[in-house]
């Protein structure tokens, strides 16, 4: 039978039984709507909630700990050093393995005066995570806040602008905080090589990667950098212990202008031999030593400085550190320093919830209504200084500013997350260069979800185990998956019931149309054509039902999203949406509707082929 004729007959049949067609379509639509709705919700939960904690293809491993009488510790030789990290990276199915470090030095922090009226003081614990791991999540969070589309207020100075924005060309412009989580902007100050990590040397007051063919700890310089001897560099620290015969060389960023330099550095006006300058720190002077602990814009920016005597003294020349940078003192109690960007840090959303639910009430202070209120908030870090334990040597201590650039479930619940380069550098400064290159854990990203189990087995064979966070995420993931599957199963049951409805409807339709079918048989229709006629009609109804179900599911999901936005807006850091519809979810309800209708109509269609045309046509 020709397709056109079949389509014409089917269309005519559908038009002639609108009631039956509508009831069949509605049944399938209901099942398809359930299916699509639950798929959207399940995928949304998996990608927007579960994947924020740990994506399905990511695991976090750490050296295996043994418990003796309830006390956990790592067996000897269980460290995760760069060599073991490279082994993890080389495992089959592993896309990348990124080390992470926890702080191994005392530190405390204080801040919050601008937000809650007075400074909160606490001990500080750091997690160092590679930028690449957090950046996508931070960007997604920032997109959800839609900062760029907010009304732009007029301003003269930054202080006129709300938190999270700066005054630029007379209007307050939102700062893209996610992009600030960048280890290239982290400058690790030093006075000697011992302050730096293995493979780095102290040059021009900052730790830089060593380079040079004869240096066993050297690494190749990156694009835009040049390998220069430490002694060639202006302002080489007096404490550099290298002998003139064996000067180390370091990679230094070359520049044509300030925009080529990271952090708060500027491009040296004296070009090198290749016509390019060097990125150097901008010197500054604080008015008073106490200004190092101030968050007042005028005080913390100090004024720019120039060398003014042969003894290395610095004199003010007006202006101050620009943009987001502040004048970071060279040493505790010193007024001379360098302009630096605050260290970008990320907080766990749980911290905000704990603050709002428990701390705010106890301390009688206002709650933080929205997470974006914390974006751009600065606080002080006293590195090497502790409320509880012994402080580091005073000449090693330093006070730095930090700025909140986002929230992530990957951040520790109690502590702050900084770029790995910062934590590794501080670990080297306070606990020795070896501490800067030893990882407390690694995040492994596999090329597919299927490769995860094998990777876990390989990591366990290397003396590693899943972190508590990873174990929790996997358990949560399994629970979400089971609930998801149960709901999808429920939707399939609804579809199966609708298929029974289809079977009933088509059994009636076939009975009603038996004379018509007999006439078609008399005119030359084969049993196959009759079967196809009934089946195609059912499949068209299934497709229509699936399409309607798809629309219903999307409408319901929009209603749920709108209700959540209205009623749950007070709950901080909820995902920006609960539903996510992958591309295949648009075709699935239609395909499933067609399939179940075909299954439902198969038996009536078979009955139609078995009608005896002679008997039917003999009836009056």
């Amino acid at each position, binding site marked *: 039978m020709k397709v*056109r*004729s079949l389509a014409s007959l089917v269309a*005519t049949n559908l038009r002639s039984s609108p009631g039956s067609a509508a009831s069949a379509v509605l049944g399938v639509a209901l099942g398809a709507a359930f299916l699509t709705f639950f798929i959207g919700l399940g995928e949304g939960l998996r990608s927007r909630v579960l994947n924020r904690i740990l994506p399905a293809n990511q695991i976090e491993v750490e050296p295996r700990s043994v418990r003796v009488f309830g006390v956990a510790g790592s067996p000897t030789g269980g460290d995760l050093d760069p060599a073991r990290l490279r082994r993890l990276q080389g495992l089959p199915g592993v896309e990348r393995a990124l080390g992470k470090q926890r702080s191994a030095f005392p530190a405390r922090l204080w801040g919050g005066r601008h937000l809650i009226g007075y400074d909160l003081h606490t001990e500080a614990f750091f997690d160092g995570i590679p930028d690449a791991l957090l950046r996508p999540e931070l960007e997604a969070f920032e997109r959800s806040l839609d900062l760029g589309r907010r009304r732009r207020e007029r301003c003269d100075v930054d202080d006129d602008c709300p938190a999270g924005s700066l005054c630029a060309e007379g209007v307050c412009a939102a700062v893209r905080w996610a992009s600030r989580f960048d280890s290239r902007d982290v400058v690790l100050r030093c006075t000697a090589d011992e302050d730096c990590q293995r493979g780095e040397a102290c040059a021009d007051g900052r730790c830089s990667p060593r380079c040079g063919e004869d240096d066993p700890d050297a690494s190749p310089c990156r694009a835009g950098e040049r390998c220069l001897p430490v002694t060639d560099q202006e302002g080489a620290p007096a404490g550099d212990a290298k002998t003139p015969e064996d000067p180390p060389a370091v990679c230094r960023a070359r520049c044509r202008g300030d925009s080529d330099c990271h952090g708060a550095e500027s491009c040296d006006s004296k070009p090198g031999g290749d016509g390019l300058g060097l990125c150097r720190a901008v010197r500054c002077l604080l008015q008073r030593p106490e200004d190092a602990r101030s968050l007042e814009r005028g005080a913390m920016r100090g004024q720019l400085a120039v060398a003014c005597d042969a003894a290395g003294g610095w004199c003010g020349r007006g202006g101050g550190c620009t943009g987001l940078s502040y004048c970071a003192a060279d040493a505790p109690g010193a007024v001379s320093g360098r302009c630096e960007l605050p260290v970008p840090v990320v907080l766990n959303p749980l911290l905000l919830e704990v603050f709002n639910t428990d701390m705010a009430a106890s301390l009688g202070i206002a709650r933080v209504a929205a997470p974006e209120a914390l974006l751009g908030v600065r606080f002080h870090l006293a590195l090497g200084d502790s409320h509880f334990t012994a402080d580091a040597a005073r000449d090693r201590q330093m006070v730095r500013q930090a700025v909140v650039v986002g929230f992530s479930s990957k951040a520790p619940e109690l502590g702050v997350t900084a770029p790995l380069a910062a934590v590794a550098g501080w670990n080297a400064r306070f606990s020795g260069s070896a501490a800067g290159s030893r990882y407390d854990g690694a995040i492994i990203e596999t090329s597919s979800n299927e490769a995860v189990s094998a990777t876990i087995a390989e990591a366990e064979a290397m003396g590693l185990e899943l972190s508590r966070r990873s174990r929790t995420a996997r358990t949560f993931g399994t629970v979400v998956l089971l609930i998801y599957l149960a709901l999808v199963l429920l939707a399939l049951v609804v579809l199966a019931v609708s298929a029974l409805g289809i079977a009933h409807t088509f059994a009636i339709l076939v009975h009603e149309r038996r004379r018509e079918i007999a006439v078609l048989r008399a005119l*030359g229709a084969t049993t196959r054509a009759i079967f196809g006629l009934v089946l195609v009609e059912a499949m068209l109804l299934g497709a229509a039902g699936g399409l309607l179900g798809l629309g219903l599911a999307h409408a319901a999901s929009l209603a749920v999203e709108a209700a959540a936005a209205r009623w749950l807006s007070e709950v901080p850091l909820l995902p920006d949406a609960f539903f996510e519809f992958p591309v295949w979810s648009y075709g699935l309800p239609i395909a499933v509707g067609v399939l179940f209708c075909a299954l439902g109509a198969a038996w009536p269609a078979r009955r139609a082929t078995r009608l005896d045309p002679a008997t039917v046509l003999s009836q009056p």
Partner: protein
Amino acid sequence: MRPPLIHARQLSRAFGEGPSRVQALVDLDLDVEAGERLAITGPSGAGKSTLLNLLGALDGGYQGTLQIAGAELHTLGDRQLSALRNRTIGFVFQSFNLLPSLDVAANLALPAAFVEGGAAAGVDPAAVRARALELLARVGLDASVATRRPLELSGGQRQRVAIARALLLKPALLLCDEPTGSLDRAHADAVLDLFEELARENGSALLIVTHDPLVIERQPRVLHLEAGRLARDERRQA
């Protein structure tokens, strides 16, 4: 020598089993040549409709031999039987059996929808439409009728549409069941004229099951059935 269009020997058909078994047709021998016209008559229950269903390849539960256009129906599968009904046999039912949900043009074109091979078999949509309109004109209906539904037509008009549909693919055998049963005398005469003329034009054999003496009188050959048996095979001079 060409075989007859219909060749039946010892053709029997029974319905039911055991005590309720009814012998509808008993040992019927029949040959019908191409282009021949004949009426089949007899009292109710004589086996006329049973014979018509067997000759139309709608009922395959017979004993004996039954060949249509040289093919023994017993040996044909569903596809071949369907093709035989489609290309060799045309039906005109007493109640017309037009599909009420299709317009006249679609009803007329319906047999072409089941031709295997479609355009490759010489049945392309344009040709079918032209043939349908030609037949519509031939049975005395205006082309505007093509877009109307069967229920919007009179009984006579529906009968003409049914005749046109049966002739669409120029079948070798035209089977008619009481074609004048629902028509008045004037219309019955006109329809019979049309039938005979079109059958002659197509070279189709015409078998009419009827009680109508007028119809019987006009046919050159009349088969009288009684209690499932061929009581008389009467041939007249044209």
